[in-house]
């Protein structure tokens, strides 16, 4: 079965081709079958392969399949080839699985959209590209997927291209991603220049040859790519705008799968990252900073999807924190659980929109819980999961990250602290959204209110499946401290290792970490401390929930008053710290101005001016010189004399020399 790994991306590709080339002829019915079925088959294949893989001993869980030579130029040799190992199959499962349900959901959600066929075409293409990304056995093919998903993201964000905001958002996503890709591409160059290969296996095997500076540069550059794709500071700005796309797209691409590609990539390159402590520190810091920064933005948003978007960014920050402290498996674990609950949250939001005829402003919702109970139920589960309530998937994964941030040799107390606060903030704003949407008084527009309805089965079933997964998904990684086996950790260990070995931390935070250790917190690896921190984080989350409850259910007027009291701060946060505006001024406008200046000033004025100037000059000279031709014979004779005198003087001079 492993040999048929190429089937996994092939099915979506076939689906893409059928829908893309023939979809309009075949009609909606066929498209609704082909689209999800392609993914379903792919999902099925992944499952089969997964089982075959776990049937093997841990050390043999690696398989590569080369399809054909791709770019071959001198010593530069790359192939189209797929590899199966725990990491990639896990990703493939998540991708195909979540995609499958979201496809099904989409059949209902997009049912009346005129671009139905186009939608599924893009979606299949996306899955194909995503699978290339996760299954690739070399950097270049990964990059194909990497850019490919970016393209699909672009296409799907701008799906309703007639809306300027959608088109703009799509373009923004693509360009910002390109900035990230710029780093990725340079990272690849460095790898190739130093190792002579872009093949994962080869490259990681040879990684030992790299010196620290190089490997740091490589990893940092790759991280720039990850920042772009996974919306980390400073390249996160595209993701909130990406909510212009259809909601299932947000769910699939901008929550569950594509945006996590950066995390996957860092995990994939764990060998390299482990060699570059500084880079890891950067990853961790950027991750945690993103987590708290965007969580704070989530406070003041009223657009349900935007809240979820910022939450996504924040959660991605967590994942980076995890991989940054060397807890790759924790990061991937969170990636997986996040895919479930965040996918669910978005689908739920979609369901809400469906019920409210597209309304997204939570100020115009409220008291929906009884009207759309399934949506509410699943949404509620997901919210609990993301808030880190024990028992649900989010709790396990988030808690592992927090613990690793604290305990890992690359970790630090401060990282933990910030992350924990961010977790509390997450709980707060998620519940804020939940409360404002489903509880309290209805603020729904009256002409919408009378036909609020639950979504059809085809939408609610995926919700329920994902809700189920959000609950149980965490049990593959129950930490040892709670008596779990942490299967996922073990499963991934052959690929990402057990993280950096303790004590080997020799740079980055090591000094601080040692100080912390020396400061008496050497219980870092003690069970008690772990449990204590776990409880602490749960408490923080509950506090967040409590505040949300207090502010939005008990005293719904209070938030407004607070906002008025601290209007400066409020405006700052509500306007997302003006980052977009800053970028607009810094990059977009200045580049436009530069472009204009170069065009008008340099191209047309200087270069063309010079060229035309010469032409005009010659023309002018010509019109001047023709006047010498006066028409008077005697002037002509004088001209001859002039020539004669010059000649005569010249020749007589020659007589002397």
């Amino acid at each position, binding site marked *: 079965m492993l040999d048929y790994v190429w089937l996994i991306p092939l099915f979506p590709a076939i689906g893409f081709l059928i829908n893309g080339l023939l979809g309009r002829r075949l009609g909606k019915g066929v498209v609704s079958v082909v689209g999800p079925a392609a993914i379903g088959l792919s999902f099925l294949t992944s499952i089969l392969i997964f089982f075959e893989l776990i049937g093997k001993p841990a050390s043999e869980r690696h398989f590569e399949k080369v399809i054909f030579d791709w770019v071959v130029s001198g010593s530069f040799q790359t192939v189209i080839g797929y590899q199966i190992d725990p990491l990639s199959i896990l990703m493939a499962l998540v991708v195909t699985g979540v995609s499958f349900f979201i496809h099904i959901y989409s059949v209902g959600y997009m049912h009346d959209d005129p671009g139905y066929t186009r939608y599924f075409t893009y979606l299949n293409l996306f899955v194909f590209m995503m699978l290339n990304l996760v299954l690739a056995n070399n950097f270049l093919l990964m990059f194909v997927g990497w850019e490919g998903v970016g393209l699909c993201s672009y296409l799907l964000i701008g799906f309703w291209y007639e809306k300027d905001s959608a088109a703009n958002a799509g373009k923004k996503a693509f360009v910002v991603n390109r900035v990230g890709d710029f780093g990725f591409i340079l990272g690849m160059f460095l790898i190739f220049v130093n190792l002579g290969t872009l093949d994962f296996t080869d490259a990681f095997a040879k990684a030992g040859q790299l010196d620290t500076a190089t490997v740091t540069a490589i990893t940092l550059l790759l991280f720039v790519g990850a920042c772009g794709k996974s919306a980390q500071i400073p390249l996160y700005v595209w993701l909130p705008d990406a909510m212009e796309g259809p909601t299932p797209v947000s769910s699939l691409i901008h929550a569950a799968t594509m945006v996590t590609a950066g995390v996957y990539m860092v995990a994939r390159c764990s060998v390299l990252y482990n060699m570059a402590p500084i880079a890891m520190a950067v990853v961790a810091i950027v991750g945690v900073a993103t987590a708290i920064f965007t969580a704070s933005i989530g406070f003041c948003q009223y657009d349900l999807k935007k809240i979820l978007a910022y939450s996504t960014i924040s959660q991605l920050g967590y994942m980076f924190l995890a991989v940054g402290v060397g807890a790759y498996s924790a990061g991937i674990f969170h990636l997986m659980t996040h895919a479930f609950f965040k996918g669910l949250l978005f689908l739920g939001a979609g369901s809400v929109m469906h019920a409210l005829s597209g309304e997204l402003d939570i100020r115009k919702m409220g008291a929906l819980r009884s009207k759309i109970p399934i949506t509410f139920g699943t949404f509620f589960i997901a919210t609990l999961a993301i808030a880190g309530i024990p028992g649900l998937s989010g709790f396990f994964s988030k808690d592992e990250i927090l613990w690793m941030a604290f305990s890992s040799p690359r970790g630090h107390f401060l990282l933990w602290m910030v992350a924990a606060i961010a977790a509390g903030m997450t709980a707060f704003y998620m519940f804020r959204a939940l409360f404002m949407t489903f509880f309290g008084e209805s603020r729904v527009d009256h002409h919408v209110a009378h036909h609020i309805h639950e979504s059809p089965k085809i939408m609610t079933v995926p919700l329920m499946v994902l809700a189920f997964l959000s609950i149980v998904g965490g049990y593959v990684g129950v930490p040892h401290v709670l008596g779990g086996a942490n299967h996922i950790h073990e499963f991934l260990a052959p690929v990402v290792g057990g993280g950096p070995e303790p004590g080997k931390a020799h740079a980055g935070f090591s000094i601080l970490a040692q100080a912390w250790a020396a400061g008496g917190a050497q219980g870092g690896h003690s069970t008690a401390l772990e449990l204590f921190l776990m409880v602490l984080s749960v408490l923080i989350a509950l506090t967040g929930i409590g505040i949300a409850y207090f502010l939005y259910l008990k005293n719904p007027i209070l938030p407004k008053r607070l906002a008025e009291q601290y209007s400066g701060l409020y405006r700052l946060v509500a306007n997302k710290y003006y980052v977009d505006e800053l970028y607009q001024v810094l990059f977009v406008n200045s580049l436009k101005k530069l472009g204009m200046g170069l065009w008008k000033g340099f191209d047309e004025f200087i270069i063309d001016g010079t060229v035309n100037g010469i032409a005009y000059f010659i023309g002018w000279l010509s019109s001047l010189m023709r006047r010498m031709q006066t028409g008077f014979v005697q002037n002509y004779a004088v001209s*001859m004399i002039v020539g004669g005198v010059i000649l005569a003087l010249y020749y007589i001079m020659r007589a002397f020399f």
Partner: protein
Amino acid sequence: MKLPDIDLYLIAPEIIITVFGFLVLLVDVFAPKGEKKGYLGVLSLLGVAIAFFYTLPLVGTGKTGFVEMFAADGFAIFFKITILIIAFLTLLISIGYAPREGIGFGEYYALILFATFGMMLMAAGTHLIIIFLGLETMSISIYVLAGMLRGDQKSVESAFKYFLLGAFATGFLLYGIAFLYGATGSLYLKNIASYIGSKNLLNHPMLLMSLAFLTIGFGFKIASVPFHMWTPDVYEGAPTSVTAFMATGVKAAGFSALLRVFFTALPAFQPDWTSIMWLIAVATMTFGNIIAISQNNIKRMLAYSSIAHAGYILVAFVAGNKLGTSGILFYLMAYAFMNLGAFTCVILLGKKGEENTLITDYAGLGFKYPLLAASMTVFLLSMAGIPPLGGFMAKFYVFSAAVEAKFYWLAVLGMINSAISVYYYLRVTVLMYFREPEREITGLSFSPAPTLALILALIGTFYLGIFPSNVLSFAQKSIAGLM
């Protein structure tokens, strides 16, 4: 007292031309009046053709005659062939043009033949008197030809200017010859050279002065700066067929005499003349090209262009090597075809009482008279030096000579000039193809003779561009006796 050996075969072409010249006059006198006199042209053509066939057997003989005053060496033969071709084409276009303008009487054709006779003497003379007399025969014929359109003020003015300046230049030329004679005691070019060599007269002021005088005299005929000033006026005013004849024939003959005198009689002074000629060459190219840009009469533009071409040829002259000299020969041949071709087009575009020589008259011609316009384009592009036309190959040889002689900058300046020249040649094609006509030109008649000339010129232009080998190796062989 003994008569020199007279070898009439040697001067057979000249004799035939002269005889036909008189024949034309006689036929004209005895022919009934008022009729169309196309046959006069045909008769002249016949003369040229016969002369041509009498020239061919002389190829490679290298004989001299009349006390070595007259040579039938390769150089002379090459030029004679060129000149006869020019005369032939000129006569062909004249058959269409002269009657149209009311000058198609016997004297016109006779004068063309006599001028041809003079040119041939210039090419063949190895004695200064022959060269001088040839030059004068040519000049006087052309003075008259230029003023043929007696009712046309421009034509009269052109003859007047040409005459005054021509006579003025003759004075200088004569002074140069006198000094040559005074310094060496001989009028034979070969003797002059050997005398200079044997007596080592390199710094003789009189000889150097004579160089200056000769440069003025010949520079006038070939229209090099600053002795070029007559060219535009005379070319513009003269009847177009005569202009064509002047632009090609006079220039060719002028160059033949220049080459003959400088390379045969004064090769010792090559280092002396090189740098000043360098200057003249550059000035000639530049003046011609730059002023041509702002012209609005096609004849005048072609006049300036012909000045520029003289400049290109002078580049090869400056190079002074075998390549250059043969390049000049080739150039003049190619130039004859393309320039005569261009003038033929100019003539074909005109009709009685309407010359249509403004460049704006060419607007929209490209699609109205596609073949005429295409031919004109070919000639202009050839003059601009675009391959695969004769003009390109000609320029190629000329500049390669300069490069060979290590006059890199001269070659570069030449090529830059060539690029500038493209502008005004293109201007005509722009008008022909890209613009709508400002006024309708209708009722053109393409009489057979000029059309034939056009075709021949086209063939020549293409032939020299695509298969330059034969003519080039002929030219290379031809200069053997010269240097």
